[in-house]
């Protein structure tokens, strides 16, 4: 336990305050509820809890022991040793939000660099200091579009090929705005392609169209036509992106997207069973006054020295109170720092390398698996980055049980989110998987089909 007070000190302090004992400080707490008994396990020492949790955690299957082909919104990438070394510095992780810039330049400059890296990555003009994750960033994109049109446009169109959890999150957030309709992702379209059917739904009551790139099934589409047509009707477009992909393929800014959001977990952040991750939120300059979340700007101090500060804070909840358009308070400070260090360590060359490795290995895997009897690519005509969908001869969960016996975590069972996609597995391949491991995966898949 971490309270330092000696009995002597307590006695002195209580005397200064002018009470007889510490209990006397709680007299305002209603007597019948005061000092309840807490039914918690007795305190453990550091050694004891470390031992217990080590045991509990080792019972889990992790990517240390298993080869993992799971993606679907979180990806297993290599994290350079340098990243955690810096993150462990108490000056970064035990620092508070940088409201006092004079003693927070470390945090502020790091976030400024993060913002810069994100705009470079996405080809957009401005990035904020981050959101909670990709899903909430997507919801905030819808929020921004709604407020941009001052509530006069009430439709948000979302492609069915956007991550299902992101779409659910957007719906949850849009509830509070009244009669906003989130549409476009109903079951029905056989080929699950993005462009045509969404375009048919765009009208002048539409605030935003949202698509994903690469989409949830790993496919890469050219959104130029979609965006041009949407813009012609005055509609905003948001693209949900995967950051690693942007080392190899054109960024959302090249398509003239208004908003580009995504999850930065692949950039030096551990899988950590789903969180904390990193919401990336980038926009065209014209939306900067509508931007939710923290923002770091460059300025000078009274000596003329360059300095960084939190800026445009009047937009935020603590000043606008009930007039603010969003209640977001935290950014994911430490995760944004991790991404900044990751991209700095990798640099231009390293980042292009990792992106290429993912692409090449995924394509090799796709080729090998689709050559097996009973397995085929679900979308053979679409280019993809590091994720692809395989139609399997048996239910995915059956295959995965079998794969587990071989220390392999198979891909994601798409039937959980897309009822018409029974026996469809979403497979992700990253730089972490060697050719031998891919061959092993292929071999087990082949074996299962012949049982």
């Amino acid at each position, binding site marked *: 336990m971490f309270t330092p007070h000696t009995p002597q000190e307590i006695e002195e302090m209580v005397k200064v305050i002018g009470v007889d004992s510490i209990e006397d400080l709680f007299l305002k707490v209603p007597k019948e509820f005061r000092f309840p008994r807490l039914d918690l396990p007795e305190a453990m020492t550091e050694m004891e809890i470390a031992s217990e949790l080590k045991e509990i955690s080792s019972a889990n299957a992790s990517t240390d022991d298993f080869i993992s082909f799971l993606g679907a919104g979180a990806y297993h990438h290599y994290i350079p040793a340098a990243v955690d070394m810096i993150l462990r510095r108490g000056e970064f992780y035990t620092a508070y939000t940088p409201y006092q810039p004079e003693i927070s330049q470390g945090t502020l400059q790091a976030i400024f660099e993060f913002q810069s890296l994100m705009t470079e990555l996405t080809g957009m003009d401005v990035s904020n200091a981050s959101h909670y994750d990709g899903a909430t960033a997507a919801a905030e994109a819808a929020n921004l579009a709604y407020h941009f049109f001052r509530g006069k446009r009430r439709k948000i169109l979302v492609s069915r090929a956007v991550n299902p959890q992101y779409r659910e999150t957007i719906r949850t957030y849009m509830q509070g705005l009244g009669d906003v309709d989130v549409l476009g992702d109903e079951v029905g379209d056989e080929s699950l392609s993005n462009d045509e059917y969404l375009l048919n739904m765009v009208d002048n009551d539409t605030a935003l169209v949202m698509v994903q790139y690469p989409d949830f099934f790993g496919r890469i589409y050219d959104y130029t036509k979609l965006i041009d047509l949407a813009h012609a009707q005055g509609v905003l477009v948001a693209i949900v992106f995967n950051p690693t992909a942007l080392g190899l393929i054109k960024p959302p800014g090249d398509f003239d997207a208004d908003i580009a959001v995504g999850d930065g977990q692949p950039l030096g952040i551990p899988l950590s069973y789903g969180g904390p991750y990193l919401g990336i939120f980038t926009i065209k300059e014209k939306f900067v*006054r509508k931007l939710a979340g923290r923002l770091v700007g460059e300025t000078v101090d009274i000596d003329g020295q360059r300095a960084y500060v939190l800026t*445009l804070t*009047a937009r935020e909840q603590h*000043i*606008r109170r009930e007039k603010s358009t969003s209640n977001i308070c935290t950014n994911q400070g430490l995760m944004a720092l991790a991404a900044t260090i990751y991209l700095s360590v990798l640099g231009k060359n390293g980042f292009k390398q990792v992106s290429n490795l993912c692409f090449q290995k995924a394509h090799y895997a796709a080729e090998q698996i689709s050559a097996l009897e009973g397995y085929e690519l679900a979308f053979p005509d679409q280019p993809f980055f590091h994720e692809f969908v395989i139609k399997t001869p048996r239910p995915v969960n059956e295959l995965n049980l079998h794969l587990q016996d071989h220390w392999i975590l198979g891909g994601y069972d798409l039937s959980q989110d897309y009822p018409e996609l029974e026996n469809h597995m979403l497979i992700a391949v990253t730089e972490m998987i060697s050719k031998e491991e891919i061959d092993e995966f292929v071999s087990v898949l082949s074996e299962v089909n012949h049982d």
Partner: protein
Amino acid sequence: MKTPKELRYAKTDEWIKVEGDEGTIGISDYAQDQLSDVVYVELMVEEDDEVSIGDILATVESVKAAADVNFPVSGTIIAINEDLADAPEVLNSDPYEAGWMVKIKLDDPSELDDLMDADGYEAYNQERE
């Protein structure tokens, strides 16, 4: 604190200069002082818009506050001050002249009776301190 005599003032710190059936609207010296350095102004109306009393005219942001400016009268917008977007600080330096926000054709001049004159506004400000 300047309070030009010929203007009328709302409790929410907007001023209006009336000439015939047209008015020019802005925010008072007291208001800009409360806000301190204005960094951004967004006018929420365009020419020919029809507005009612209380509708939002603009949002004004300073480093430490954000405030809405509201219409003290109803009418139709004749002109808006486009210069405010690039030089928001003029609201601080010259709130009654160069800092004008919109020109409006009044629907109902009797609405002016509910506004304060310069002396009334000054007294109101004393109360608030």
